[in-house]
């Protein structure tokens, strides 16, 4: 099962301690550093006395261990079953040509067992050989930090070419799309992988000349929420992936502040509209006006 000490932070920290102790007598400072890194804030209060006090008889007073070799654990059955499930996910072929074969281990789940019911239908085409080739080259360039020359097609069908230093890939589960975060000569921005028509390694190495650009502009919006028709739970779950603060202001009234990236403002406006009269934006005023403007236009539609 998943909730097992075999996967626990304490077992991981102790395995790391013993790995070092097999190699050389362990000093207390080293032990503390390992616990701080591999376990939790208060773990040192428990792990250190348990090992040095020989409640856990794994470390001798001189810092050596009776273990003969560094600890190792084969994959558990549930880990193999989970890995075997990945073979039927089309996205695995972005990473590998042939998924791993786990023999007679049956997968934990198959595509028939799961359904993502509200994902957008125009996601990236993971079966496209060119897309897969681009994905692998981009991932390799991110790993090894070399520049790429890419050509993209914009909404109007025009081709744009640029040299970029790729930093990381962002995946949206809702859009089912990957975006590349990269540095260019004059910008720091994103490129949808689905719009890349050509991607090659730059032969010139001009890694140092890429602009660091400006970080994305943050925004925040505050709204009042009335807890009717289970709105409190629906709203807070819906906006759970943002950094947010909620406070109760009345019996069934709440004030919620959400911090978001400015580039996603239009999306946030329509997501707020989706909750109807259960939420009312109160600040900032320009955001209130974005909502008002849409309602004014709606009124003009005659409903």
């Amino acid at each position, binding site marked *: 099962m*998943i*909730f097992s000490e075999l*996967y*626990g932070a304490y*077992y*991981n920290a102790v*395995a790391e301690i*013993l790995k070092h102790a097999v190699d050389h007598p362990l000093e207390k400072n080293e032990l503390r550093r390992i616990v701080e890194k591999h376990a*939790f804030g*208060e773990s040192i209060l*428990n792990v250190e006395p348990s090992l040095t006090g*020989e409640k*856990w*008889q794994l470390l*001798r007073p001189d810092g050596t261990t*009776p*273990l003969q*070799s560094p*600890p*190792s654990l*084969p*994959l558990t*059955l549930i880990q193999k079953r989970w*890995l075997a499930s*990945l073979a039927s*996910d089309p*996205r695995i072929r972005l990473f*590998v040509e042939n998924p791993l074969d786990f023999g007679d281990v049956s*997968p*934990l*789940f198959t595509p028939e*067992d*799961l359904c993502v*019911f509200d994902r*957008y239908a125009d996601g990236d085409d993971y079966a496209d050989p060119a897309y897969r080739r681009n994905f692998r080259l981009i*991932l390799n360039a991110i790993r090894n930090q070399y520049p790429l020359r890419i050509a993209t097609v914009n909404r109007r069908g025009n081709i744009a070419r640029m040299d970029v230093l790729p930093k*990381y*890939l*962002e*995946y*949206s*589960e809702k*859009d089912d799309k990957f975006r590349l975060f990269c540095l260019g000569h004059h910008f720091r921005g994103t490129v949808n992988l689905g719009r890349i028509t050509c991607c090659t390694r730059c032969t010139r190495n001009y890694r140092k000349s890429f602009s660091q650009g400006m970080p994305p502009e943050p925004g925040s919006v505050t709204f009042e929420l009335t807890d009717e028709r289970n709105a409190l739970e629906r709203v*807070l*779950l*819906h906006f759970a*992936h943002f950094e947010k*603060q*909620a406070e*109760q202001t009345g019996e069934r009234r*709440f004030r919620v502040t959400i911090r978001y990236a400015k580039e996603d403002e239009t999306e946030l406006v329509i997501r707020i*509209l*989706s909750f*109807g009269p259960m939420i*009312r934006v109160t600040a900032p005023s320009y955001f209130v006006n974005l909502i008002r403007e849409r*309602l*004014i236009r*709606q009124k003009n*539609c005659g*409903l």
Partner: protein
Amino acid sequence: MAYTELIKNFNRIRDYMREFYVYGFKSRDGFTQKSARSYDDERRRLESWLGDYMQFRQTPAGKTVFLSVDSRLCRHNPLYKAWKTKSFTDGDITLHFILMDIVAQAKEALSVREIMEQTDAYLSGFPDPRLTDESTLRKKLREYVTEGILTTEKHGKSLYYKRTPDTACYDTDVLDFFSEVSCCGVIGSFLLDKADFINGPHRDHFTFKHHYITGAMDSEIVCQLLLAMQEKRGVTLITTGKNRDHISESRVVPLRIMISVQNGRQYLMAFTPGSNRIRSFRTDHILSVTPGEISGRFDELRETLNGMRPHMWGVSTQSRSGRRTEEVTFTVRYEEDEPYIHQRLEREKRCGTVERVDGCTSRFSASVYDASELIPWIRTFLCRITEIHFSNAALEAQFKEDIREMYRLYGLEGGESI
């Protein structure tokens, strides 16, 4: 009982994590269902596990504690840490590392007696060596065979144990990605810990947008349901109500996990023999899953569910009006330079049809079990809806009244167009 950082039972901390992460506005006094001592212990645990994400705010009602996570900025689901907190005994951890070292050195499978003798030899160097009793060792061996890290051989009437051979695993890029987007991704997180132990810390190359992390808290429940589905087995569910105010037991045949990537909720679709219908259960309302008998009807029931899908917008399989299905149609108007509105309808619809009425007008229509499920989506088109019709008249009236209420909220009351 004295406070410990580790826990035996996940369900209690699951509730607190949800309160702190999803809601995050209650003060200590607001946690009325549990004692103040219990609140203090759970808060302290979460602070120890997730200190980087814990925040505090002073309000007139008292100090409130909340978990604030921008899931676009953190590359690994921080809530997975809670799954790495299972408590154990001093004997468990001592025996674990010694046992796995013994089987790692052994060239052949070992009997229980041989393992016991070697364990005693490992411990003999300590001034006050721990005694290993045979029944504890046998229990641990059985447990590790079930987990798949030991295998057995039969020699005559005796079982001999050996370490399961190592298996290839994917690289950390695969694990980084799928541990965040795949069902039961916490298992990928365990594999990442293992990879980092072997190779040292890795660099991650992915971030995630629109990323809901709350499902992590239901990982064990979902895992048990998936295991039951693989065996086409019925289960008994213990569930709690929306307000955690009552507990129910249901015997069901689990058929599919339905996942929302727009609010992070996960549901079980299951056949309930009592009501003779397929319905949904929210996984965060399921407290426990007990496997039952294999169901001879599993394939037939799953086929029935497949047949229902074209009429399901979300997970509801029953209308509020009592009709089998409800019809909904709405028309949107847009400018010539806004062709993406039609594309939005096409890509966001989950069922139903979209037709282009003219170059600047499109119409969506669908026949669904529960038309109320579409309302939030329809509202995202506010500012361009020219017509709307629900076969459920009460729903249509509610929709229109809600829009009027929105006009009032933003000071646009009055019936005239502006």
